[in-house]
């Protein structure tokens, strides 16, 4: 058993660190707003009201959390697998575009019982394929995945615009001559039902929650998940234990991309029901923040997604009512990321100190190598 690792997992400070990070980011944000001549109390107050003010707003907050959760659990897989996927944004777009193409062509002629699962599968697969590319390049060509996934985001954005102004454009936009780059409305057979109108809360919430549980079980209760995490913790040890490191790198980015694709799919089937320019912009990046805030744990991502769903929904309200741009939230998310990763060191040092106090300064690397080797047999 890796003592240092288990001390990190059990340290209450480790669990509190993300909360402190968000609190700090909000304080810094208040300072920035104050400097810009905006009342931070009023701003945060309108955020709170916008996110939780009444049942309808609460439902919209949950609606917003759905794609964030799906992206975040995908990020959990890739980060746990030692692959830094910054490409959720593009994978989400590609999933949504693929499902739109599927729906406006064949989806309408199928009964809902067939069309919905097929559509989900199409969206997942498209995102997975988009994620597999940088995964493959990382595993076999040593291409830095952070850079390649960022580039894949830009390519996906342009691809989206290209398709929406060309093959996928709503025929009515051409008839009317307005040529707004958006798709036709999806056929009703692929819609995810609304749970509490007039809010846009849809049945995708169950898909997201189910996916979080499945990914948790996959990562911690199956040999496959075990190998993904082993590669993430120590590539040399994993290789020594006979795990095909490149294969699992591709796999973790593929699954990660698939879940991001599913996020876009669920969003287009449940919320917008057509692809539009500016669809779900920023969700891919927010999902990374959600995952880090949930300590890269699929179940931790559930409350985390709800919290960031509230922040984003609240920020929109803040922009409408007191004209504080919602971009404030992007800046604060950046700070949360910086604070969370910075706190890791502190938590690690605490673990080292506590391990020393327990009288067993165990060299973590060698220990984990043995564990991996033993358990893989």
């Amino acid at each position, binding site marked *: 058993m890796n003592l240092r690792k288990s001390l990190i997992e059990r340290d209450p400070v480790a669990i509190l660190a993300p909360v402190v990070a968000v609190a700090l980011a909000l304080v810094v944000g208040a300072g*920035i707003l104050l400097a810009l001549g905006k009342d931070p109390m009023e701003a945060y107050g309108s955020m709170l009201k916008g996110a939780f003010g009444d049942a309808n707003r609460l439902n919209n907050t949950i609606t917003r959390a759905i794609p964030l959760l799906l992206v975040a659990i995908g990020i959990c897989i890739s980060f746990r697998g030692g692959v830094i996927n910054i490409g959720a944004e593009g994978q989400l777009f590609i999933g949504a575009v693929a499902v739109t193409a599927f729906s406006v062509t064949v989806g309408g002629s199928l009964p809902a019982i067939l069309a919905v699962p097929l559509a989900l599968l199409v969206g997942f697969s498209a995102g997975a394929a988009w994620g597999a590319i940088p995964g493959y390049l990382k595993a076999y060509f040593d291409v*830095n995945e952070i850079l390649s996934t960022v580039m894949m985001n830009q390519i996906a954005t342009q691809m989206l615009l290209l398709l929406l102004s060309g093959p996928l454009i709503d025929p009515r936009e051409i008839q009317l001559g307005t040529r707004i780059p958006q798709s036709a409305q999806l056929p009703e057979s692929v819609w995810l039902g609304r749970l509490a109108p007039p809010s846009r809360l849809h049945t995708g919430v169950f898909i997201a929650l189910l996916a979080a549980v499945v990914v948790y079980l996959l990562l911690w209760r199956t040999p496959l998940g075990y190998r993904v995490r082993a590669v993430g913790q120590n590539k040399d040890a994993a290789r020594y234990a006979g795990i095909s490191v490149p294969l699992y790198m591709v796999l973790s980015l593929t699954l990660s991309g698939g879940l991001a694709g599913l996020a876009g799919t669920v969003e287009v089937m449940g919320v917008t029901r057509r692809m539009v320019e500016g669809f779900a912009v920023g969700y891919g990046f927010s999902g990374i923040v959600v995952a880090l805030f949930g300590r890269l744990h699929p179940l931790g991502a559930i409350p985390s997604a709800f919290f960031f769903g509230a922040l984003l929904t609240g920020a929109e309200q803040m922009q409408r009512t007191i004209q504080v*741009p919602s*971009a*404030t939230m992007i800046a604060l998310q950046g700070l949360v990321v*910086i604070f969370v990763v910075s706190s890791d060191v502190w938590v690690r040092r605490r673990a080292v100190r506590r391990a020393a106090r327990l009288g067993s300064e165990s060299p973590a690397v060698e220990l984990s190598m043995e564990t991996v080797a033993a358990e893989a047999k």
Partner: protein
Amino acid sequence: MESSRTLLDILIAASGLTLAAATPFLFAALGELFAQRSGVLNLGVEGIMLMGAFTSVFVISDKGFNAHPAVGLLVAMLVGALMGLMMAFVSVTLQAEQGISGIGLTLFGQGMSTLLFRVLAAGVIVAGGVEKIDLPVLSNLPVLGSIFFHQDILTYAAFALVPISVWVLNRTTWGLQVRAVGQNPQAADSMGVNVARVRYSAVILGGVLAGVAGASLSMALTGVFQENMTAGRGFIAVALVYFGGWSPWKVMAGALLFSAANNLQIWVQVLDVRVAGAAIPPNLLIMLPYVLTIVVLIFARERQRREPAALTKPFERGEN
């Protein structure tokens, strides 16, 4: 005769523009090169560029202080230095994971620049920009004169920075220290080099240059600020450092290549290039530099053997 004359003019203008548009790539990539040679991967370049782009054009515009462009440049440098300091603190002192913290810094820069742009400038900034300077004698050369010697001061500076960077890295004590702490921090430390201090200075210099890169994009190239106007150029600059195998001259070659790819859209429109009689969709052309980046990273694989050995690895004294 008349039409070939205009074609030549177009090509001259396009080549001149390619040099000018390479400026932000060059500044950002050379700055990143120093950070990486010291062992720090700074992925916050994109965010720093955005903040540099906004602050510089803001102070010189009538929305701000109508300041001289030199003041705008100084402000961008200062903002870049501060954000570089942030990155250095997080990566050197706190030893945080560099890839993710850089993404955090980029998100921060994106959000902050948009926030400031909307609040302070109500979402519109247009500024006079930076004047082109004709170098005496040289600018009178036929063809070459108007391509190479009719540029603004930032472009001249960016290209001058290439040999300067080579000289600094290879011929100065500081440059030697930067390379040493990036290659073998333990050895450098035992020779009495303050690893943390050298890394701080390299990352802050990288931040300053990223700020200048942003300023060159907003003040000199376009004269405006737009939300997320860098559009991934900061990340491309990081990729250029890999592409150039951590050598300033090759980084320059890469910057020119990407600038040309970035301008392809304009070239194709001006020259009215058609494939099988149909116009090429602009989105495809905009995609090109990003596709090129990935392709280049695949082929830069051989060069990665020259990667600084301690890149992304934090250093702790007494640790071996």
